[in-house]
């Protein structure tokens, strides 16, 4: 961070009106004189209220120092690590596909499907996600570079990089800016406004888990925005073509060419590919839910990020993410997203280094009296699902249900009447407009 970065921005802004936020560097160092604790509609306390601006600046410096330490020691052994993982993944994938040519025999099916599933998970998580984050760009190897990488996934790399790296990582957990908060179809925080459509979100979440890669493709395509008419039609058509092309290639590989090559094992190989893709979808969906949805993860109001300093940005990343504890294998299979907190603080550091900085980050958060949300996979998945289920109902419904079941029924009836009336009014208005 240099103070000079902001100074340069001021020169041009007198005469020409500039669009906010999009223009100029976001690397601000302006220090707010005093901090105003966030007021949330849900009444949840601001977990950063006890920190003053100097403390937050200090916290930012400590995190910068951790980053510098890794940058200074980044080298040949890290490069060897990613090359080893890529080599192992490709070898595993090809040998599993070879075994599946004989998938008519159950042991071959089982072995091949297991291998292919693991290979596909590694490809998306430890390799694809992290390479496309630019974690390995420093090697200057054009073959392992965020600008050239394409992954085994329905969503084309450049579209995913936009919605993930640019939007999600910049605006992490900011309600209304970060669409990863419930992917636009779910409510995963009390401070997201409830509408009746959320009643179905446990079901949406399950369907999304099964078809996760297609869900992501649809999400990256911003279908929701398109349906609301807020997306440029030309862009949507062009992007849509790209996605369909990618999906066609993926399907041809997994469900046509590979089964055909298997001859009499056609159906078994087709099933093996479908199984591998399904298991990968369920796995990645679970891991990613654990990143931002479990209980204890904080969200932020749109207004809170205006003029955000580097320290405040770090703070938001730490509080907006949750880790998964577990073995080395667990970390590898989650693409080190089990170190979600460290990943969100330093999205461009090589994933193999998150493990060594996590004790430092945890220590730092404890010193600043911030909660480091972590837990084993089963607990975090359960917690995230609990949030999805509980928040499908308006705030307070569950608490009331325990103490006052009849009250809930009354409130339900009142809500139904309220929304029923609203819908009826809207319909009537439409009819009225048409007839007039």
């Amino acid at each position: 961070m240099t103070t000079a970065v902001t100074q340069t921005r001021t020169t041009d802004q007198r005469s020409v009106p500039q669009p906010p936020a999009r223009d100029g560097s976001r690397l601000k160092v302006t220090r707010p004189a005093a901090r105003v604790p966030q007021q949330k509609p849900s009444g949840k306390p601001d977990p950063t209220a006890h920190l003053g601006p100097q403390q937050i600046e200090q916290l930012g410096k400590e995190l910068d120092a951790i980053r510098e330490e890794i940058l200074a020691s980044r080298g040949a052994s890290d490069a060897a690590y990613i090359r080893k993982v890529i080599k192992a993944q490709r070898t595993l994938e090809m040998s599993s596909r070879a075994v599946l040519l004989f998938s008519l025999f159950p042991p071959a099916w089982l072995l091949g499907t297991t291998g292919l599933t693991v290979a596909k998970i590694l490809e998306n998580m430890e390799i694809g996600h992290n390479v496309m984050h630019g974690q390995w760009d420093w090697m200057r190897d054009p073959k392992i570079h965020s600008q050239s990488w394409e992954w085994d996934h329905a969503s084309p790399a450049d579209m995913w990089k936009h919605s993930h790296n640019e939007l999600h990582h910049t605006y992490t957990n900011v309600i209304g800016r970060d669409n990863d908060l419930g992917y636009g179809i779910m409510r995963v925080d009390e401070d997201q406004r409830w509408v009746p459509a959320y009643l179905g979100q446990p079901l949406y979440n399950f369907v999304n888990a099964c078809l996760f890669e297609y869900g992501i493709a649809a999400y990256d395509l911003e279908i929701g925005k398109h349906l609301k008419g807020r997306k440029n039609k030309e862009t949507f058509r062009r992007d849509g073509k790209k996605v369909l092309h990618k999906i066609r290639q993926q399907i041809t590989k997994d469900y046509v060419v590979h089964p055909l090559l298997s001859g009499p094992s056609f159906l078994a190989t087709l099933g093996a590919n479908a199984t591998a893709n399904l298991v990968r979808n369920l796995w990645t969906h679970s891991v990613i839910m654990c990143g931002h949805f479990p209980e204890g993860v904080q969200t932020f109001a749109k207004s809170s990020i205006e003029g955000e300093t580097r320290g405040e940005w770090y703070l938001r990343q730490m509080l907006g993410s949750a880790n998964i504890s577990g073995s080395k294998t667990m970390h590898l299979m989650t693409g080190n997203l089990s170190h979600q907190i460290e990943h969100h603080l330093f999205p461009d550091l090589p994933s193999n280094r998150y493990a060594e900085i996590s004790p430092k980050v945890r220590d730092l958060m404890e010193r600043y009296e911030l909660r480091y949300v972590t837990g084993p996979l089963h607990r975090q998945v359960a917690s995230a699902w609990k949030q999805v289920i509980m928040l499908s109902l308006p705030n307070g419904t569950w608490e009331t249900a325990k103490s006052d079941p009849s009250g809930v029924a009354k409130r339900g009836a009142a809500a139904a009447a309220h929304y029923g009336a609203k819908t009826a009014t809207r319909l009537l208005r439409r009819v009225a407009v048409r007839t007039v």
Partner: protein
Amino acid sequence: MTTPLVPADYLDLVSPLRAGADLRGRIVEVRMETRDAATLVIKPGRGWRGHRPGQYVRIGVDVDGVRNWRAYSLTCPTAAPDGCITVTVKAIPDGKVSHHLVREVTAGTMIMLDQAAGDFTLPHESPRKVLFFTAGSGITPVIGMLRNALEGMQDVVLHHSAPTAADVIFGAELRALAAQGRIRLIERHTATEGMVTVDDVAALVPDWEQRQTWACGPTGLLDAAEEHWGAKGIADQLHTERFRPTVLATGQGGTVTFARSGVTLESDGATPLLDAGENAGVLMPSGCRMGICFGCVVPLREGAVRDLRNGGITTAAPGDAVPIQTCVSAAAGTCDIDL
């Protein structure tokens, strides 16, 4: 079948040197020539198209995990029976890559290669009278010529400068050629005799004006030679090869050229190149504007930039295309950006 990868991505794992692959080479031997120079024997991939004596090859080698490209003269016969090629590298002060190649690299290491290039070569029919005028590692392209085409040349003088006799790369081989009477070798040991001047050479080789001359060495020497030959009106008899020093003037800010957009601007050392480019109307790719999303990455063709987050310098030499994040990089010297 292998989408989104291509079959080559899998074949590279088992056969990186096969025909049709990106051109690579495997180092099969590292031979020390002097205390700070080594010859690398490289088995090139099947796609290697050969070279002419005096040409160089660009080598991409990973140092501390980072790929660096450097050009080195080929010192081998053009058709070695084992199909290997050699380059000879002198470790220069602060030369990260040359030190790595001379001191660290081991047999078995894979490197990236380009096809041979360069026009510092002998004509098809070798001239009768030749003067080679070299200093330090400037001998490397010349040894390639001597090893390949000495037969065709009747009268060869080699004037070579090195700090001491022990520092003369290929010293034993050159002295043997001289002892056999096949070349006239003039060694200048600069540690005791001082730096050579063009006048010294003219005095030692009185018929220099009748010779075709190939000169390779430090920039100052070559400049002086060009002036000297030019003054006599025989500039066409002088052929030079410059090893451009990789010393870059890094400072605060500099002239930034967006070649394809046709925009040149002066930028200070604190303005992100993204802002500088946008303010000048260049259509810059952009994203998070804080260094995390890599949506703004463009290739730096030549020059130096400073990372505004930690002051780290990234440089690119001609022929490079080093990807840089424009939102957190400021000019740290003259920059040529491919945009």
